[in-house]
């Protein structure tokens, strides 16, 4: 039986992971590799927990939780997997029950998103009534306590169920476990060797069939991660690139090409539908939808909206480049520095620590955005309670972005609020600064969210996780993988977050936009993709496990490479080749036939179980 201390510690760990306290736990403690290892440490089986977490991490490599969506509760899956391995299950056999627990656990996230709405409304009411520092209670403390109240019993229930499924107790026919045994005897009689229905065989068959069903899933996980990182170009895009190259050669050549292939040119050369080149140096003002000179604007696109009530006040009147009437001259540091550096650091840390704690369906991150301004408002409006309240109310409006890459937005907001407090009339478009602040934060939040999610969840995290999982598969280094991964991600998260915040603070909106347009992060992504590919090959070889009866139940060594190697060194190559071939086939199915992840996984599970059943009968 797990002790109450173990249950409590696992509950606290699950709470920190689920509530994202601090935010970086979303990238670290919530990953099955890390929480599996940590739960394994608490429950007395760190190596097996880390191994099960590594298998789960490889399987779930391609699943991401962008925006406010949560496909699967990764931390609950990791804890359940570790608890099952601590209860005597083999790491691969624990994978499917852990995935089921994770799938059920996503409702906890949904529940929190909904209940946090209540706290978010309290924050708004408090601000409207003129209370400022008091918002820390409903914005941070109460949602954290709510998450604790939910996570502790859920984790305890998961551990209790795993307790009931302890292998020795199942094998001895422990009464609470009997329904599970009978169910499996009914569902998978073919998996029982020789038709013997004694309980020990049933438990062995149960582990065998579950491990066989999970053994092929890593191929699907790696394939999903690779296809997400390499979306490729459609037919249209390849042709567009050709057209763009022709455009560069000059107008005469375009006409010549159009004569050669009129259909193609008619299809693509539409002066109103030209895109911004990837490389800003190649940017031709004639090719963009945004005119450099407002006088040249296409009247179709710049006319005032028909119904002014339905649109914002953002009517451009001035040049959108670097010139401004006052405040921050473009390209230079803004004029006033009202906020001391320590307050800015406090604000940035509040953002990085608590941004997800009051995440809710109505205002998303708005409330915590207001909290990050608490250290700033007394410097922006000293002694002016009304002014402080106005800033906090403005910043508590609907907001949602990526924590690290989007940290430039609160930094920029701090800088714009400084300009407003110093009496600036306008900063970007010629409108009032209050309106510009709202316009800039709304304009940037989505794109920074998309940029951050793509960089982190499609590239950085899969590459680092694969490297950590590979370390975990090497016996003496099983704990090194999750520890090094956690250290690396924590450093990266805080480094990127703080840099982004202060870059946002030091720059102007237009310069920030120009920096974003340089697409530096795309080059980083390209570099990370190389590592992702490199790590995918050994990961497929080590973690894809073919259903070989007699080798699966109870075994804790991952991978076909080692399993096949039991037959001698000559047997290693076919096993590795088969694992790579299966992964390549999965990539093909996703890219060529557009298979969805869930169907691919279902097929792999059925294939593994079927092969195991068929070979078991032979």
């Amino acid at each position: 039986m797990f002790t109450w201390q173990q249950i409590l510690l696992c509950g606290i760990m699950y709470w920190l992971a689920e509530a994202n306290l601090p935010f970086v736990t979303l990238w670290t403690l919530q990953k099955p590799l890390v929480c599996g290892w940590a739960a394994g440490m608490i429950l007395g089986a760190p190596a097996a927990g880390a191994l099960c977490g590594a298998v789960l991490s490889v399987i779930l490599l391609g699943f991401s939780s962008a925006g406010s969506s949560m496909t699967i509760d990764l931390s609950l899956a990791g804890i359940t997997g570790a608890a099952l391995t601590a209860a005597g299950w083999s790491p691969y056999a624990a994978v499917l029950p852990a995935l089921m627990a994770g799938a059920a656990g996503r409702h906890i996230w949904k529940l929190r998103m909904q209940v946090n709405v209540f706290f978010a409304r309290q924050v708004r009411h408090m601000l409207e009534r003129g209370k400022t520092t008091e918002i820390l209670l409903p914005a941070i403390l109460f949602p954290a306590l709510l998450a604790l109240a939910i996570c502790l019993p859920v984790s305890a229930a998961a551990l209790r169920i795993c307790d009931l499924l302890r292998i020795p107790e199942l094998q001895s026919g422990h009464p609470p476990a009997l329904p599970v045994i009978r169910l499996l005897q009914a569902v998978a009689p073919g998996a029982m060797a020789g038709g013997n229905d004694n309980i020990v065989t049933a438990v062995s068959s149960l582990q065998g069939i579950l491990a066989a069903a999970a053994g092929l899933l890593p191929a699907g996980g790696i394939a999903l991660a690779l296809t997400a990182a390499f979306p490729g170009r459609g037919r249209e895009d390849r042709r567009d690139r050709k057209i763009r190259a022709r455009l560069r050669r000059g107008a005469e050549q375009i006409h010549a090409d159009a004569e050669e292939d009129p259909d193609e040119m008619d299809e693509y050369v539409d002066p109103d539908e030209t895109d911004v080149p990837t490389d800003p140096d190649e940017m031709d003002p004639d090719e963009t939808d945004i005119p450099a000179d407002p006088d040249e604007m296409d009247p179709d696109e710049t006319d005032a909206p028909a119904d002014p009530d339905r649109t914002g006040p953002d009517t451009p009147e001035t040049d959108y480049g670097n010139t401004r009437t006052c405040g921050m001259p473009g390209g230079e540091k803004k004029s006033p520095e009202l906020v001391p550096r320590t307050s800015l650091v406090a604000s940035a840390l509040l953002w990085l620590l608590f941004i997800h704690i009051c995440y809710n369906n109505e205002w998303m991150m708005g409330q915590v955005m207001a909290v990050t301004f608490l250290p700033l408002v007394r410097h922006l409006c000293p002694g002016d309670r009304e002014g402080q309240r106005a800033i906090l109310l403005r910043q508590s409006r609907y907001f949602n972005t990526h924590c690290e890459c989007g940290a430039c937005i609160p930094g920029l907001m701090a800088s714009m609020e400084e300009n407003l407090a110093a009496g600036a009339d306008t900063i970007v478009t010629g409108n009032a600064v209050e309106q510009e602040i709202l316009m800039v934060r709304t304009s940037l939040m989505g794109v920074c969210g998309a940029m951050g999610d793509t960089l982190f969840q499609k590239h950085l995290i899969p590459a680092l996780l694969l490297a950590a999982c590979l370390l975990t598969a090497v016996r003496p280094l099983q704990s090194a993988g999750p520890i090094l991964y956690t250290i690396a991600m924590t450093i990266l998260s805080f480094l990127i977050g703080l840099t982004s915040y202060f870059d946002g603070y030091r720059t102007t909106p237009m310069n920030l936009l120009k920096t974003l347009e340089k697409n530096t992060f795309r080059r980083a992504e390209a570099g990370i993709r190389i590592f992702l590919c490199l790590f995918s090959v050994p990961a497929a070889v080590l973690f894809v496990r073919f259903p070989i009866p007699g080798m699966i139940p109870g075994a804790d060594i991952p991978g076909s490479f080692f399993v096949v190697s039991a037959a001698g060194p000559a047997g290693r190559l076919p096993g590795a080749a088969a694992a790579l071939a299966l992964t390549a086939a999965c990539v093909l199915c996703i890219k060529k036939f557009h298979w969805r992840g869930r169907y691919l996984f279902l097929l792999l599970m059925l294939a593994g179980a079927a092969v195991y059943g068929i070979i078991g009968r032979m």
Partner: protein
Amino acid sequence: MRNIVLARVDDRLIHGEVVMGWVPAMRITRIIIVDDALAANPFATRALQALIPPDMKCYVYTEQKAVDRLMADGPKGERLLLLVKTPLTLQALVQAGLPLKECNLGCVGIDTGRRPFFKNISLSGEEVQALDALQKQGCTPYYQLVPDQKRYDISAAIGDAMGRMEEQGKSI
């Protein structure tokens, strides 16, 4: 007419859920955003175009221009994502003759005049009426945050909201 594979209402427009969820799942090649205020806001338009994935394109149109563009034939192999901030825009497009069969509601944040409608969708009375009108015009609205999650029929929620608005109107 352009090959619109998904029409989505999401006031964050291009966001993680769109780039990581819908774009790969629906194999989108182009994104067209329709919003009068946004089309008149070069800062926001530039920000959107700066950060879209490198293998696709994004255009921002006013409602009037969008109808012309969307009704015209598109390039072969095009798979278009139509993004709007509010159902009012979609209703205007459908009213102008764009034959949409269904529209996806992703996320609409609460703001002045909006009330919680369904999950993370908050709508004003006008926007609920727009959804009702869309439904009557043969464009079925549904809620689905990301492709991996469940698709919800929201006709009952629209009916409830319309009923509440009628009652409030009578009581006033």
